[in-house]
């Protein structure tokens, strides 16, 4: 197997850190700064902290860790940074540096233990809730798990999706042949579409079938590594990346499509840091909406019969698609659906507030950011909020519930699948 490089260390970012001229542009785009107005919570503050850490000007004390932990890794800042400073990478590297010197947080340990072991993850999921080890309602009093994860991190007023009765990868073959001459597409399911929202994966399969694609769904694929990246567990990121490399490299697929924006970001950037082989594979990773539009799903949808009754739908931009410039494609698909009356919402491109493991530590901030989103949803007067990321779906639903709104949340692909089904 190819030699894969490890995740870079903080010192490898010394030059990019130097590129930050502290102009302050990031103030205008950071969802956390928007709430708190404190300099340590915005990109240039964190870059200054990373710089101070590299220069040995500061200790890693509690406040330092808290400041570095208050970042959604949404990339809104680096997106608009005049000097293209990769802030989310610098923050992730700072968290790895903290973990290296101080050890992983208990939450980080629990998370990476789960994510790194597919069987444990399945077991957890079978318990009824993937995050049940966090709430401990289902873990026996004397369980070792309970000792390892000794704090209730998830609040009870938080909406967490239920785990599916059948997991996506378990219920589909590894190969679904398509039309001859059509590209081979490997489906990266991601954890949420595998364990919690398998119907999103099924919708993806339906859409790919519609275009006659040859589909591969390797069973030995794993987590994209975003939660581990977010919690600073470099070793876990490396291990997960190795696993995904071996699961997908041998397939020789033309494309690796993702149904989750964060998985797309995680898989692509983590593979991209492992050297030439990884970069080659990373180049094949593509968001399914962009892929479908490129492959001409527009024509297929245009051929569907018109509908009299339409449902009003708005769209939330997941950060990890927006910062690749994938904003038009999901909207194009929605607008092409005969049953959809598309309407824009205010600040559709602002982060939902989930941010990897951020919301676990800083749920109060997540709620504040979510409240702003919920207000925009309410004002858009749409029945449905569609998005392109299961993580955002979970967070949007939570925000809507906190605001007491009647809206429903779905994935763009679900609407595509529903339309295809009803027209059959």
């Amino acid at each position, binding site marked *: 197997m190819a030699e894969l490089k490890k995740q870079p260390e903080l010192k490898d970012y010394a030059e990019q850190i130097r*590129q930050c*001229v*502290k102009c*302050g542009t990031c*103030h*205008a785009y950071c969802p956390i700064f928007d709430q708190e*107005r404190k300099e340590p919570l915005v990109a240039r503050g964190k870059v200054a902290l990373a710089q101070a850490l590299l220069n040995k000007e500061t200790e890693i004390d509690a406040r330092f860790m808290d400041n570095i932990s208050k970042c959604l890794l949404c990339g809104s800042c680096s997106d608009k940074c*005049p*000097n293209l400073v990769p802030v989310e990478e610098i923050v992730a590297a700072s968290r790895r540096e903290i973990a290296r010197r101080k050890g992983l947080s208990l939450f980080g340990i629990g998370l990476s233990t789960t994510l790194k072991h597919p069987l444990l993850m399945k077991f957890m999921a079978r318990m009824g809730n993937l995050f049940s080890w966090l709430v401990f309602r289902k873990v026996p009093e004397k369980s070792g798990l309970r000792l390892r994860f000794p704090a209730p991190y998830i609040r009870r007023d938080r909406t967490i999706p239920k785990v599916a009765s059948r997991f996506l990868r378990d219920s589909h073959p590894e190969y679904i042949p398509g039309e001859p001459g059509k590209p081979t597409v490997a489906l990266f399911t991601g954890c949420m579409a595998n364990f919690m929202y398998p119907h999103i994966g099924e919708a993806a399969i339906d859409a790919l079938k519609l275009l006659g694609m040859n589909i591969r769904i390797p069973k030995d694929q794993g987590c994209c590594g975003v939660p581990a990246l977010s919690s600073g567990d470099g070793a876990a990121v490396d291990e997960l990346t190795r696993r995904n490399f071996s699961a997908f490299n041998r397939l020789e697929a033309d494309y690796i499509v993702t149904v989750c924006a964060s998985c797309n970001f995680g898989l692509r950037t983590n593979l991209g840091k492992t050297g030439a082989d990884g970069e080659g594979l990373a180049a094949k990773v593509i968001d399914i909406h962009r892929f479908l539009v490129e492959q001409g799903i527009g024509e297929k949808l245009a051929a569907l019969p018109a509908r009299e009754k339409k449902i009003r739908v708005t769209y939330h931009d997941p950060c990890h698609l927006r910062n690749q410039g994938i904003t038009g494609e999901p909207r194009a698909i929605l607008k092409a659906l005969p049953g959809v009356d598309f309407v824009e919402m205010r600040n559709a491109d602002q982060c939902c507030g989930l941010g990897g493991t951020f919301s676990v530590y800083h749920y109060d901030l997540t709620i504040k950011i979510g409240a702003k989103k919920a207000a925009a949803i309410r004002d858009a007067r749409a029945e449905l909020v569609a998005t392109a990321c299961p993580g955002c779906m979970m967070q949007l639903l939570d925000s809507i519930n906190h605001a007491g709104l009647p809206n429903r949340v779905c994935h763009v692909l679900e609407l595509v699948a529903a339309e295809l089904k009803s027209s059959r």
Partner: protein
Amino acid sequence: MFTGKEKEAMLEKSILQKLEKIVGRDNMTTEKSDLICYSFDATQQRFLPDVALYPRSAEEVGEILKLANRERIPVVPRGAGSGFSGGSLPTMGGIALVLRRMDKILEIDEENLLAVVEPGVVTEVFQQAVEAKGLFYPPDPASLKFSTLGGNVAECAGGPRCVKYGVTRDYILGLEVVTPQGEIIHTGGRTMKGVVGYDLTRLMVGSEGTLGVVTRIIIKLLPLPEAKKTMLIVFDSIRGASRAVSRIILGRIIPTTLEFMDSTSIDVVRNATNLSIPEQAKAILIVEVDGEEELLEKQAKRILEIVAPFGVLETRVAKDKAESEDIWKLRRSISPSLRQVNPNKFNEDICVPRSKIPDMILELERISREIGVPIINFGHAGDGNIHVNVMVDLTTEGMQEKVDRALEEIFRATLSLGGTISGEHGIGTTKAPFLAMELNDPTIKYMRIIKQALDPNNILNPGKIFGFSGNE
């Protein structure tokens, strides 16, 4: 490491306790990792404060200043910390007075065309709020998406639209100010006219936080112009372009903006735009006019006629908002793209009388040639405010000396043409060494007497404008 003089001791615990009593525990920090984030501004220098405070009212600011004045603690007011001259740097340590939490738009008075705001309101947020009511606040510093109105007042910020509309000071009707002794005073008011006593509003605007802390601002508004029209004019020489600028003004037309880019600026943004720019382009003017729809067409035509004899290669009049945006993107891409030339940027904001722009451009070309450093020029040609960027690689031996020499020559040339060494960034720390080049001794003395009289203990933003030696 952090620069600045070694402090004898951190603030005493009893003082910190008193400060905490004033603002509350959540609005104060002495944690090193927080203070690091209040140690810098856009000049990239770093000085650690001893404590950062987030006051929420003029009364709290007053209490803080009373205590600081009694205990002789430096106080540095801070908005977004995005200044280019070091105005918000805590060069002597002490208190970083962060005014971000005083961020309310208190009132938009449509009958009297004014607004009342707290200093922490972000400029663009304010502009959007008044524009939603058909009103207009013209000053538009490049940092408007993140700079605060308090910071704009302290530095007297400008921007492209100032050619026609003037700078921040032209829109400030009155202020609430906390004095270095912690008293709350009021300058100006809600009327367009007012001559009672000294014009303290004008004294405060641009005083860089050295005379008082602004806690409330009364702002004059204009009706929002109905429409605007953006033009891009490409020239075959910088001289042609700069003469065209003078002719437009001579033609009794004052555009909303009149921006220019030299040939290096054009080169660095060629790839950042989807507009095709002729190979031979040596200078570009971006001209915008605003007002009533019908008049704009006429004005645009007139401007194109005026500039025609000066080597125009191409003109483009934006048909819609998207095309106008494309043109502005060209201008906005310059600053971020400058690093293609060299890693270190020395950005000066000199200003000369408009008619002297052609001469100044010639001088800049000469200095660049003679000293052997790339100098890239762009900016607000319409009001003579040129952004002069000396782009170098400081790791090259002897480069700092060359830069110092180039800057001094640039300032000398500016002054000999009747200009000023800072149009809109302020003096702060970065230009303090050059103050005496522009102002004669009695003038500096006069200013220092004002500072000493108002702030005898020199607690407010010490070391700024006059330099360290000027503040004893």
